[in-house]
């Protein structure tokens, strides 16, 4: 089975790997690049734990082939904090106890960041529907939704 050489940009850094065309972008991130922050919870696009951005679009990396990333820009949880400075969403997730086991957290943060970039002032309903593809089994979502709303307010420069 011949492998394909892939050159892609992950969180701003150019990287290369050899991918079997059957391997997903998630497999490649985790097993070839050692970026295990993106998680596999289902492998069928139903849980969102593997959420990344691909050329700025939010996707499940388990539903993208590694070879499809060639020449594209990939954004993962490892790139959400910039230069060691946490993104307001990350701070608010800790502050609001919006995580318990933390396994869904990377995917939710990547998804929530994508939401706030296109909608800086989402309603609770908009947050809930945007995140409907990110399963969390620990929190009942209450504190997650609050953390996202509070981070949005923070980013807008409003007091919570």
């Amino acid at each position, binding site marked *: *089975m011949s492998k*394909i050489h892939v050159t892609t940009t992950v969180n701003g850094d150019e990287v290369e790997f050899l991918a*079997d*065309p*059957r391997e*997903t972008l998630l497999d490649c991130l985790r097993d070839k690049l050692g970026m295990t922050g993106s998680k596999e919870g289902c*492998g*069928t*696009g*139903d849980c*969102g734990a593997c*959420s990344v951005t*691909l050329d700025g*679009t*939010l*996707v*499940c990396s*388990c*539903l*993208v*082939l590694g*070879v*499809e990333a060639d020449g594209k820009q990939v954004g993962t949880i490892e790139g959400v904090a910039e230069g060691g400075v946490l993104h307001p969403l990350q701070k608010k997730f800790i502050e609001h106890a919006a995580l318990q086991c933390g396994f869904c957290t990377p995917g939710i943060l990547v*998804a929530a960041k*994508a*939401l706030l970039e296109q909608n800086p002032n989402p309603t609770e309903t908009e947050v809930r*529907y*945007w*995140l*409907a*593809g*990110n399963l969390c089994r620990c929190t009942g979502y209450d504190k997650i939704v609050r953390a996202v709303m509070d981070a949005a307010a923070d980013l807008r420069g409003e007091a919570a």
Partner: protein
Amino acid sequence: MRYHSPSTFEDAARIAAAAQGVTRFLAGGTDVLVQLRSGHVLPDDLIDLKKIPGTYDIAQTEDGGWRIGIAVPGAALGAHAGLCKDWPGVVEGMELVGSTQVQGRATLAGNLCNGSPAADSVPGLVAAGATVEITGPEGTRSLPVAEVPVGPGKTALTAGEVISAIVLPPRGDKAGDAYLRFIPRTEMDIAVVGAAVSLRLDGDTIAEARVALGAVAPTVLLVAEAAEAIVGTTLDDSAMDALAAAASAACNPIDDKRGTAAFRIEVAGVMAKRAARIAYDRAKGASA
């Protein structure tokens, strides 16, 4: 598995026609990758269509309709103001497929070619009278969307044929469409019942209508009797009841893990009524 990324549909069709084993086309990949990873479908040749120029485009046709590239994901449909204004029902059907993440990848063409009777985007396309452009070894042809699915998991496409565009007719004035589905949760489910209604008004009276149902038969249904029930009416209560009865009567569903046949028959009428109301309001100028 061999991975191909041709730069024209003709090349894609040629590769597919020459392939000996299991072949799959890759557009959004949200069905193909699931089948691949679960081992249900292990393609020998995978033909990625997204490197073909124009596959991400949404363009107005000369007659005022729309031509939608096969790699346009649901999120891009929803972001396109012109398309959303003309065909909100088609767009909302596609936007119900999967999550925000899946919307970043999943396509109309993929949803159609997967051949599921429950595909959310298909009833809207059928109600709209959409067609697909098909490229094959013998050239291109056009086929109504309603004729693409021929059974669960089966399409009318022959070996080597690939959908190269989705074409929506011109919308025209005083018209509206809508799609509603029933799922047990609020998101992330496969439709138990889906109903799309497209209609045009003459004054307050419905002059033309098309009603399509999903997940209630082996393929999507275009229910002429349901359309007839509301044409010539102002969608009064008796028209609504007749619509619901006609929709329910057309159903030929199965019991499965997602719902019972009796439930599907009952709720098909409910969804048809509710979708008709939205389509009617949109035709009268309500925004989507």
